[in-house]
């Protein structure tokens, strides 16, 4: 009678053990997470575009477009905001760090300059440490961030987008513990600085988003190589 009473528990234990064994025999998980950080939000409108649109709305719309493209390619996306909400730079970094992402992109837009600007942190590269100072946590990831910027640069140039690479200090990016790049989209201009493609051009936005998605697929392939 006692043996019959314990039989369901025994079966459950065997099932759990066999599942654990099966999981152990499978190859390592192909988890690949990308964090998209649409800059500004809420009271912080950011810059003002030529068509009157605010930077916060532009970056949110671009994030939605890029998230769809990445999801279609099987890439898991975490965003720091999904609505017109104010998010503190520290909170943005917290979200990115908890996601343990393979790439973190902070999306910005501006009317100054030309083409796309890719910025990595200007912090000096440092060795990874168990505990890193919050404001300079990105220092241990700068080398990987530069590599990510290189992959993004290649894909954007391939898509015919002019790119400028630079280093800067952004509060959210400097605290991220992932390969992080700040992307600033600006209008395309001719040699005499006349605007040829404005930020409100849907084809331009699509070209940029598609190139970024292609770059992240390439980055995933590089990350999963032994």
């Amino acid at each position, binding site marked *: 009678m006692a043996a019959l009473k314990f039989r369901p528990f025994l079966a459950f234990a065997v099932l759990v053990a066999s599942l654990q064994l099966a999981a152990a025999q499978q190859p390592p998980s192909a988890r690949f997470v990308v964090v998209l950080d649409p800059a500004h939000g809420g009271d912080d409108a950011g810059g003002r575009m030529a068509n009157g649109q605010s930077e916060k709305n532009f970056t949110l719309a671009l994030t939605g477009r890029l998230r769809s493209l990445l999801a279609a390619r099987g890439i898991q996306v975490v965003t720091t905001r999904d609505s017109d909400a104010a998010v503190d730079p520290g909170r943005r970094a917290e979200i990115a760090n908890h996601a343990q992402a393979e790439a973190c992109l902070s999306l910005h837009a501006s009317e100054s300059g030309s083409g796309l*600007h890719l910025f990595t942190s200007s912090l000096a590269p440092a060795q990874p440490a168990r505990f890193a100072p919050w404001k300079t946590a990105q220092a241990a990831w700068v080398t990987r961030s530069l590599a990510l910027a290189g992959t993004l640069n290649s894909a954007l140039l391939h898509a015919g987008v002019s790119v400028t690479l630079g280093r800067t200090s952004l*509060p959210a990016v400097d605290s991220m513990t992932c390969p992080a790049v700040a992307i600033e989209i600006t209008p395309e201009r001719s040699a005499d600085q006349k605007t040829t493609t404005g930020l409100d051009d849907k084809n331009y936005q699509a070209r940029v988003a598609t190139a970024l998605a292609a770059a992240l697929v390439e980055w995933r392939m590089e990350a999963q190589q032994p």
Partner: protein
Amino acid sequence: MIPRYQKILFGILLLASLVMGVVLWQLRERAHERMIAGQDSAPTSAPEVASAEQATLVVANDNDSSLLTQVHFLPLPVDDGARARAVLGKLLDLYAAPDAAHPVPGGGTSVTQVFLLPAPQLGALSQNPEPAGAQLAVVNLTGSFAASHPSGIETETLTVLSICGTLRANLPSVTQVRFLVDGHERATLAGHADLTRTYLTADAVPQP
């Protein structure tokens, strides 16, 4: 029936009105030209309180995201802090000019003070220890300058780097720069570039 003398009077008045209109239009055009000519001559030259010396400005250019050196001759004070302020004032005057390649409103009065202090060791922030005699420059900007600065990563970064590079070019002992706005710490310049950190002047090297 309108009398003949009234017709003549009306004609004379109409003609006088037209002539006055033409004269007023010409006067307005001349005044406008004078105003434009006055703007072209801005920024106004500083009063000659000292002999002109060579100053090297690291000037930003939004068109190609570059920093280039320009040599100017300015009357510079002897005191290092005042000298730094004068040089940065000239730099921001260039940015406030109508045809600037890095347009930023405000001009030279946007730098209210520059304080020079012994530079602290930065530890993990810098790969090299600070040499003896190294200085930290604390640049106090006006709130109106920060409020009117164009928003964007590139434009804000170029402003910060050109200030750091200009200080390094004229005061080689300045190795670190911090920023205040109206005497207080401010999170960012115009929503992007971090103003709470210490910048290293060695990072603001202009293109050869």
